C-alpha cells in the first residue's frame, strides 16, 4: 500500500513537472529570439491587432506570411497595399503636410534610395530593437530601416546560346567584340553600373557604360522585360535583372543562368515604420519578424526573395554568393546618395537632361 502511495505520488510529481516543462517549452517556442522585449512587443502588437504595409511585394507573399503569423503569433492582421514606393512616398508626404493622420504603418521599397525622401524629412521612427532584440544585422539609417530582402544584380546569360565557359566572368568582358550587335540587353536605369561607380569611381563606370553602348545592346525599361528577353532567347546576356528572378526562371524550365561576378552589386529592399504609424508595436514586431530566418524562409518559399548577403542570408542565391565570395557592393544608407548621383550622370547617356 505504501509502495502504491509512493508510486502514485511520483507519477503526480512527474505529471506536474511535465506540465511545467512542456508549458515552459511552449512559451519559449513562441518567442523568436526568446527575449522579454519581443514578448512585450508582441503583446502590444496583438492589442493593436493590425499592421498596414505599403510596398511593391507581391500580395501572395503576404498571404503566406499571414498564414504563418496566425499559427505562431495569432492576433495580427496584415493589411497590404501593393504599389511601387515612389507614388506612395509622395502621398505619405502630402498627407502628412496636410495634417492628415497616417493611414499606413510600414513603407517598403525595392531599394533604399526610393525611400530616402522619408529619411530626409525625418518621418521614420528609430527602433533599436531590430538589432538588439531580433538580432538582425541589416539595419540602416540609425535604426530607421530594416532589410526585408536583397536584390542581387549579376550578369545573366542564356545557356542555350552561351556556355558557362563562354559567359562573361567580369564586367569588362562585356566589351568583347563577340557581344556586339543586339546580343546584350540592359535595363535602362543602369543601376548596376551606378553601384559599380561607388567602388570604381564615377569616371570608370561612365567609361564602361559608354563602351558598352557602343556594343549596340538592346536597352529597355523594367527588370521583368529584361528577364523575359533573356529567357525567350532574344539576347544572350542580360544586365539589370535580379539573380532570384533568374533562379525562378530556371526552376520553371528556362535556359538561363547567372554569374556572381565581382564586384557584385546588391540592392537592399528595406522596411521602415512611420513616426505617426497608427499601429507602431505591430509594425515594429512585423518588420522585425520578417527579417528573422523564419520570416525569410516564408518569403523565400513564396517568391524566391530573401536576404542574399549577411547574417540571415538564405536560399540558392546566397549559397552561390557564399561559394564564390565575390566582393559585394551592398546598397546601404552610407552609399545611396553616391549611387543616386552616379545614376543621374549615367542617365544623361540615355537622354536624361539632369
Amino acid at each position, binding site marked *: 500500500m505504501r509502495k502504491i502511495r509512493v508510486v502514485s505520488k511520483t507519477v503526480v510529481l512527474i505529471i506536474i513537472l511535465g506540465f511545467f516543462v512542456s508549458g515552459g517549452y511552449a512559451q519559449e517556442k513562441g518567442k523568436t529570439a526568446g527575449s522579454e522585449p519581443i514578448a512585450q512587443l508582441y503583446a502590444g502588437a496583438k492589442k493593436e491587432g493590425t499592421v498596414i504595409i505599403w510596398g511593391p511585394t507581391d500580395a501572395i507573399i503576404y498571404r503566406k506570411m499571414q498564414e504563418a503569423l496566425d499559427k505562431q503569433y495569432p492576433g495580427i492582421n496584415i493589411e497590404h497595399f501593393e504599389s511601387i514606393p515612389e507614388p506612395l512616398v509622395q502621398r505619405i508626404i502630402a498627407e502628412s503636410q496636410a495634417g492628415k493622420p497616417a493611414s499606413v504603418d510600414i513603407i517598403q521599397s525595392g531599394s533604399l534610395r526610393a525611400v530616402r525622401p522619408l529619411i530626409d524629412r525625418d518621418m521614420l521612427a528609430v527602433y533599436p530593437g531590430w538589432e538588439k532584440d531580433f538580432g538582425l544585422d541589416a539595419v540602416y539609417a540609425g535604426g530607421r530601416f530594416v532589410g526585408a530582402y536583397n536584390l542581387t544584380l549579376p550578369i545573366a546569360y542564356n545557356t542555350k546560346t552561351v556556355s558557362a565557359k563562354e559567359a562573361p566572368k567580369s564586367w569588362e568582358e562585356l566589351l568583347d567584340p563577340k557581344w556586339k550587335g543586339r546580343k546584350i540587353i540592359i535595363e535602362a536605369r543602369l543601376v548596376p553600373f551606378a553601384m559599380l561607380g561607388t567602388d570604381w569611381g564615377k569616371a570608370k563606370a561612365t567609361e564602361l557604360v559608354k563602351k558598352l553602348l557602343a556594343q549596340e545592346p*538592346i536597352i529597355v525599361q523594367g*527588370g521583368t522585360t529584361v528577364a523575359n528577353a533573356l*529567357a525567350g532567347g*532574344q539576347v544572350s546576356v542580360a544586365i539589370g535583372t535580379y539573380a532570384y528572378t533568374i533562379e525562378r526562371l530556371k526552376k520553371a524550365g528556362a535556359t538561363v543562368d547567372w554569374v556572381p561576378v565581382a564586384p557584385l552589386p546588391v540592392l537592399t529592399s528595406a522596411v521602415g515604420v512611420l513616426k505617426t504609424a497608427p499601429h507602431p508595436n505591430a509594425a515594429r514586431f512585423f518588420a522585425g519578424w520578417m527579417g528573422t530566418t523564419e520570416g525569410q524562409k516564408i518569403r523565400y518559399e513564396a517568391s524566391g526573395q530573401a536576404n542574399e548577403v549577411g547574417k540571415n542570408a538564405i536560399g540558392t542565391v546566397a549559397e552561390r554568393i557564399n561559394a564564390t565570395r565575390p566582393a559585394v557592393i551592398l546598397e546601404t544608407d552610407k552609399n545611396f546618395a553616391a549611387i543616386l548621383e552616379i545614376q543621374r550622370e549615367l542617365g544623361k547617356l540615355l537622354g536624361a537632361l539632369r
Partner: protein
Amino acid sequence: MIVSRNALVSRTRVLTAPFNLKAAIAGRSLAFGFTLLIVSYLVIVPLITLLYASIKSTEDKLPFESTATTLANYALVFSSPATLPLLLNTLLFTLGSLAIGLPLAIIFAWLLERTAVPGRTWIASLVLVPMTIPSLLSAIAWIQLLDPRIGLVNVALRALLGLSGETGPLDIYSLGGMCFVQGLRLVPSAYLMIAASFRAMDPSLEEQSAMAGRNVAQTTLRVTLPIVRPALLAALIYYVIVVIESFDIPGLLGFTARIRVLSTAIYWATHSEVGLPDYGLASALGTIVLVLALFLMWIYHRLTAHQERFATITGKGYRPRQINLRKWKLPALLFCLIYVFIAVLLPFVMLLWTSMQPFYAPPSMDAFGRATFDGYLNIWRDSTVVRAVWNTTILAIVTALATIALSILVSWFVVRRRRESGALAGYLATVSFLPQGVPSIVIGLALIFVYVRFPIPIYGTLWIIALAMTTRYLAFSSRTTTSALIQVHGELEEASQMAGAPWLRTLRRITVPLLAPAMINVFFWVAVHAMQELSMALMLYNPSTVVVSTMIWSMWQNGRTADAAVLGVMLTLLSALLLLGGQFLSYLRRNPY
C-alpha cells in the same frame, strides 16, 4: 444614320409652348457659366501645378514643399546640348507615326462609313481592337513579332527569302520600327475621331461631283476630304500631342534605337526611381508641349473659322448613302483584312501565347508542350482581381459618361456661341484641349495636393481617379464632338427654339440625337482608355480602389508575366465586347428596320 426631314419636323412638333427668348437666354447663359466654371476648374488645377512646379526648385522636393523660385529648370532645358536632338527626334517620330497612322485611319473611315465594302460592320469593330490591348503588352507583342533575332516575322521572312545570318531583315529597334508600331497604335483612336464626320456627311455633294464627271478619287479629294476638314484637323492636332507624349514605344524601342524623344526626358525626370520625381524639370519640358498645344489650337481656329461651310446636316434633310466600289470592292476588302491580320490578329495571338506560358518563350514545339490555360482559372482565386474588375467597370462607365456630358456642353458653346461670345468660346475650346499637354503624373500630383486638403471627401476614393481621367480625356472627347457639331447646321436647333422649346430640351431632343454617332465613339474610346490608364491610377489608387491596369502592372513588375497577360487578354476581350456592343448600336441606328 437616317435622319429624315420628316423625323426632325416631328421632333419639333411636340414643342408647342410659345417661344420665350428671355428664359431661353437665361437658361443658356446659366449653362454656359456652369460649363466655363467646371472646365476651368478641371483644367486650371493641373495647369497651375504644372506652371508652378516648373519655376520651383524640386530636386528632392515636391513642388509645394519648395520655397525657392527659379528659372533654372527652363535654363537647363534650353541650354542643354541634348535638347535640340530631343526635339528633332520628337519631330521625326511624330511625323513618321502620323504619316502611317492618320492616312490609314482616314482610309478606314472612308471605306467603312462611305462605301459598301463587304462586312463593314465587323471590320469596323475589328479595326478598333488594337486600342483595347494594354499598350505595354501590345509593344511587347510587337517586339516578339519583329525582333531582329527571334521575331516571328523575321524568322519567317528569313526562311521564305532564304536569307543567311541570324538577324533581320526587319529591325523594330529603329526610327522606322518605332513609327510603324506607334502609327498602328494611332489608327483605332484616329478612326473613331474621324469616322463620325464621314458618317454624318451629306452625300448629295458627292453625287453632284459625280454628276459633274469626277471619278471616286477626284470626288474624295476635292469634295469629301475638304468637308471633313475640321475632323481631320482635330485628329491631326490631337495626335501630334498624343505622339509627343507617348512613352511606351520610345521606352521599349527608342533606347535601343538611340532615338531619344521628349517623352523619354520627361520619363527620366519623373520615373527614374531615385527618390522623388523631378517635377521642376518635367514641368518645364511639359510647358513646351503646352505651348505647342496652344499654337496648334490657334491654327485649328484659324482654319475652321468659317465653320458653317462645313455644315452638311441641315434642315433640308439628308440621307447618307454608300458609294458602290464596283471592281475595287475586293481589293478594299483585302486591304481591310490585311490590316486586321497585321494590327489585330498577330499582336493578340502573341498576347494569348504569353498568357499560356510559365515564362516567355518564342513559339516552338517545346514551348507548346508547356502551354497551359491554368492561369485563366487561377487568376480568380485572387479576390483582388474581382474587386479590380468591378472598380474598372465602374470607373470606365462613370468617366465616359461624365466626359461626354461635359464635351457636349463645351462643343455646343464653342460652335454655337462663337459669334456671340467669341473670346469666351475660344477660351473654352483652348482650355478643354490643354490637359493633353500636361503629363499624367502632374495631373495625379495636382489632385493629391488639392483633395488631401479640400473639404470635398473624394481623396482615396474611385471618384478622384474618375475626375483625373475626365480631365485627361476631355481633349479627345471635346475635339470629336466639336468636329461632329460643326457639321450640324444651327437651323435645326433654331427651328426647335422658335417653336418654343427651352434650350436644354432642344439640346436633348435635337442636338444630342444628331451627335449620337460621335457620342457612341467617344463613350467607347474613353471607357477603353479609362480601363487601361496607369500613370494617374498609380498615383491615386489605394487597396479599395485597385483597378485592372494597376494589377497588370504590378504582376508584370513582379515577374508574373503570364498572369499579367491573362488579365491583358481578359481586358482586351471585355473592351472588345464593349466596342462590338457600340458598333451594334450604331448599326441599329443606321438600319432601324
